[in-house]
C-alpha cells in the first residue's frame, strides 16, 4: 500500500502548502499507519541553506545539538537554530559543497542524518500517523509553493524515522521523492551506486529512486528526461513523485500496477494515490484522472 500526495500552487509563493499537504495526507492515513512525512518547498528568494537534521532515533540530544551547531559554524554562519523532538533545524549562510556539510554533521554520531538540505526544501517525517506531524512539528504553519507527502505501510524494511518517506536525494539540495510500490532491481542498483561511493542510509528500496534521479540530473538531464528514463531503468511497481525547488513531477511504471490520480486547474496541481485525498483538500475540484502506464508529467513553477 502506502499513500503519496503532491500539491503545487501556481498563484502564490506563500500558499498554505503545509496545511494542504497535511489535509490530503490525513485522508490516506489508513493506507500507511507506520509512518508519515512531508517535503515542503518554502518558496524562492532566499540563498541560505536550510538543514533538517535527525539527532537520533529516540532520547535527549542537547549535547549533540550543541556539538553539531558548533561543527556547522566552522563552515558557515548559523542564522537560526531550533529543535523539535528528534530534529534540529538550522539555517546556515552556506553555499558550498553539500556533501562536505552533510559529512561534517553526520560524523558526530552513527545515527545522525541530514534528513533534508536546500534553499527551499524542508522534510519532516516520523513514525506514526500524519496527525503526529502536526502535533510535534506544527507542519501546517509552513507556507510556500509546493510539497509532497507520504504515509507508509512498511513491507520490506524497518520502521523508524530514517526509513520513512519522503527521501531527500542525499547530496543534491532541494530534491525529494515519495514512492508507492517496490523497486525490484533495488539491490543491483544499490550495489552499482555503492561501487561509485554513494552512501545509502536505509534498507528501504524507495531510497534508490532519489539516488537515481540525482545521478541522472547531475548528468544534465531535465527532470522530465530523468523520470522518463526511470521507466526503463527501474523495475517493479511504482508510482512516485519527485520535487525540486521549482518542479513537481510523477512517473508511473510500465504496467500501471500502482494507483496515482491527478488534476490540474488554473491555480493548482493536485496528485494523490486515491481521490479521497484530493476531495479532502479540494472538495468537488473535478477533472481527476488516473495516470496511465508509463505516464510522466512535470509541472514547473511560473
Amino acid at each position, binding site marked *: 500500500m502506502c499513500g503519496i500526495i503532491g500539491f503545487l500552487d501556481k498563484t502564490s509563493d506563500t500558499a498554505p502548502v503545509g496545511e494542504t499537504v497535511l489535509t490530503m495526507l490525513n485522508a490516506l492515513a489508513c493506507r500507511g499507519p507506520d509512518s508519515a512525512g512531508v517535503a515542503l518547498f518554502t518558496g524562492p528568494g532566499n540563498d541560505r541553506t536550510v538543514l533538517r537534521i535527525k539527532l537520533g532515533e529516540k532520547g535527549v540530544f542537547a549535547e549533540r545539538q550543541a556539538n553539531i551547531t558548533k561543527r556547522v559554524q566552522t563552515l558557515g554562519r548559523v542564522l537560526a537554530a531550533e529543535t523539535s523532538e528528534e530534529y534540529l533545524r538550522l539555517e546556515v549562510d552556506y553555499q558550498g559543497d553539500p556533501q562536505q556539510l552533510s559529512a561534517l554533521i553526520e560524523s558526530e554520531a552513527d545515527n545522525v542524518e541530514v534528513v533534508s538540505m536546500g534553499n527551499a526544501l524542508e522534510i519532516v517525517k516520523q513514525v506514526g500517523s500524519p496527525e503526529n506531524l502536526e502535533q510535534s512539528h506544527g507542519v501546517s504553519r509552513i507556507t510556500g509553493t509546493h510539497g509532497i507527502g507520504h504515509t507508509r505501510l512498511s513491507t520490506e524494511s524497518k520502521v523508524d524515522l530514517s526509513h520513512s518517506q519522503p527521501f531527500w536525494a542525499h547530496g543534491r539540495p532541494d530534491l525529494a521523492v515519495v514512492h508507492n510500490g517496490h523497486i525490484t532491481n533495488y539491490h543491483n542498483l544499490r550495489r552499482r551506486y555503492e561501487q561509485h561511493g554513494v552512501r545509502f542510509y536505509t534498507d528501504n528500496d524507495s531510497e534508490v529512486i532519489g539516488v537515481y534521479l540525482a545521478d541522472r540530473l547531475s548528468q544534465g538531464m531535465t527532470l522530465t528526461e530523468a523520470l522518463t528514463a526511470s521507466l526503463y531503468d527501474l523495475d517493479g511497481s511504482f508510482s512516485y513523485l519527485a520535487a525540486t525547488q521549482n518542479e513537481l513531477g510523477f512517473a508511473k511504471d510500465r*504496467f500501471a500496477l500502482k*494507483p496515482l490520480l491527478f488534476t490540474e486547474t488554473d491555480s493548482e496541481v493536485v496528485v494523490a494515490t486515491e481521490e*479521497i485525498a484530493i476531495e479532502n483538500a479540494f*472538495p468537488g475540484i473535478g477533472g481527476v484522472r*488516473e495516470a496511465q502506464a508509463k505516464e510522466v508529467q512535470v509541472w514547473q513553477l511560473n
Partner: protein
Amino acid sequence: MATELDCSGKTIREINTAIREHIARGEDAVVVRNPGARHNLGVALLQPSTVKFDGSVGYFCGGLMDGATVEVNGSTGWGLAESMLSGTVIVRGSAGNGAAATIRGGTVVIHRHAAARAGVAMKGGLLLIGGNCGYMAGFMGQRGTIVVCGDVGEAFADSMYETVCYVGGEVGELGNDAVIEELTAEDLAFLEATFTEHLPERLAELKPRIAGFKKIVSGRRLWNFDKTDWDVWQQVV
C-alpha cells in the same frame, strides 16, 4: 421525487444500508450527496433502482450489481462495476484501473477516460468509453463489447476469446492475437445505435466518425495449440 442521502459523518456500511433501505421502500431514485471519493459505495445492488452519486467515488462502486442503475457525477477509483451481472453504470468523469472488469452483462458508460486494464475478462455486456483507455484493456475478453471513442494504450485486446472491440482513435499497440477486421453494416448500425442511446450529446461529433472506427477481434490463433503458432505462444506464456 428522488430521495436524498448525505454521506457526511456516516460509515460506508451505514451509507450502503441506507441506500438498500431506500430501494426496499420502492423509491425510484436515491441521490447520494458528498460521497467524498470513498470506497465500496453502492455495491451489490440487486434490485432495479437508480442511485446517483453527486461527486466522485472510490474503489469498486457498482460492483457485484444486478439490475440497478448507478450514475456517478464525478470520477471513480479502481474496479468500477466489477463483476456486474446486469444493470447500468454511468460515470460523467474518468475511471481508474480495471473498470468493468469481468462483467457478465449490463452497460458501463465512462464519459471521459479509463485507466489501465479496462474491461478485462468481460463475459458479456457493453463497456463504452467516451475518451481514451490505458494499458491492456480487453485482456482475455470472453464475450461482450468494448467501444472506445478515443485512443487505446498498449497490449489492447490481448489474448481474447469472443469480445468485440471498436476503437475510434489510435491503437497504441495491438495485443497478442488481436486483429483488425472490416466493419460490417451491422457494426455501423450498432455503433450509431450505441452512441444515440448512451452519448446523445456527442452524436453530432461521433456520427461522422463511425465509418473510421476500427473493429478488433481475436485472431483465434491462441484458442487451440498449433505448433506452427509457436512464436505467438512463446510471447504469451
